[in-house]
């Protein structure tokens, strides 16, 4: 085989493998066996089986549910996916962007009492980038929970 024909074969082979791997991954990803986080509904549907295991759940911080005690450094709030809620309890201040209505990913474990003990709270930003709207209080633009709670 001439070097030219051999290289062309390599090109076709590499492209087929690359496209095949990509197609396979796009199919495999749909199964959702391995997920980065669960929704509150999925967590609660597992019942007792989920208790004690370290998992992540994602949802929105429910309006009016945030209870931050700066003196004790404890944070209690509920995450919701619209149908089910989970109460989260944890130590330490959350990230600066944490607020009611924002998406969060919480890593922790479901206690026997049905309260989720968080090890870590991450804030999920959506893909919208907007300047503050007129009339928005300046404190809202970069507020921290510490100033809000006290």
């Amino acid at each position, binding site marked *: 085989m001439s*070097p*030219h024909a*051999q*290289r*062309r074969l*390599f*090109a076709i*082979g*590499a*492209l087929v*493998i*690359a496209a095949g*791997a*990509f197609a396979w*991954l*796009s199919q495999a*990803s*749909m199964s959702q066996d391995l*997920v*980065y*986080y669960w929704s509150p509904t999925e967590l609660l549907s597992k019942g007792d089986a989920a208790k004690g295991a370290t998992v992540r759940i*994602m949802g929105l911080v429910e309006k009016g549910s945030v209870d931050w005690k700066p003196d004790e450094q404890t944070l209690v709030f509920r995450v919701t996916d619209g149908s089910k809620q989970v109460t989260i309890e944890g130590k330490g201040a*959350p*990230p*600066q*962007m*944490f607020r009611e209505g*924002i998406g969060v*990913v919480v890593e922790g474990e479901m206690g026997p009492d049905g309260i989720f003990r968080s090890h*870590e*709270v*991450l*804030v*999920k*930003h*959506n*893909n*919208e*980038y*907007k*300047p*503050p*709207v007129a009339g*928005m209080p300046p404190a809202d*633009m*970069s507020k921290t929970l510490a100033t809000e709670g006290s």
Partner: protein
Amino acid sequence: MISLPHLASLPVTPGQLTGLLAILTIVLMNISRGRAWYHLPSWEHAFGLVGLSLLVDGQYLGLIDAPREAMMGETGRIMYVHVPSAWLTMVVFLFTCIFAVGFLLTGKRVFDLLVESTTEVGIILSILLQATGMLFAKPTWGVYWDWDPRLVSTTVMMLSFMGVLSLRAALDDAERRATWTSVGAILATTSMGVTYMSVRWWRSIHQMQSSPDTIAKPMVLILRINAFAFLFLSIWLIARRWRIADAQARMDEAPPLPPEVTV
């Protein structure tokens, strides 16, 4: 705290000033070396010049003019570096793949050298992408790093293309080296596609791709200016790297010098 005026109110923008100074430097260097004042040693410097000017103005706009982001405040300004580096990482690696296919189909050396150049520049861009991503993540998400699909796939992409360079460095025969570099580059491109799709295929803490519909108008314009700055600077870097690779290849091909005659 000092407050700087908006770009539009300046008589000369910082980018225009940078461009003028750079042109002046080139003219003076040419005169001092006895060349025509308008002589540019190579065409890619024009891209570098425009890219640098755009970058200076783009970053000024991003840091000073752009409204602060409603949720993220001043932290949101890092997107004017993070997003362009993400776009250009993808574009440059896409060209790596195109050049690799080009080499395997035509066997022309220029494609092989461009595969090498674009891979290296793409890796630099992806390091910048990762670094700015981590600095962005800490104040917004709360952590520098997490085992998230987007972050992991980006790292895999970066390591794949680094692997292509190691493969290239390990092969001595020019013909085999070129062939296997191209094959490796095409395979590594899969990881680029996965990185792009990761926020759609899997649940991720990273948001989906933004579009002009999800970004406020003044921010879109500033992002575009920075994206073009990154594009022009990438072309400049790739061309510079290609010239080095070309000189190296010519040197390797040249017949050995005759042994020195000692008298």
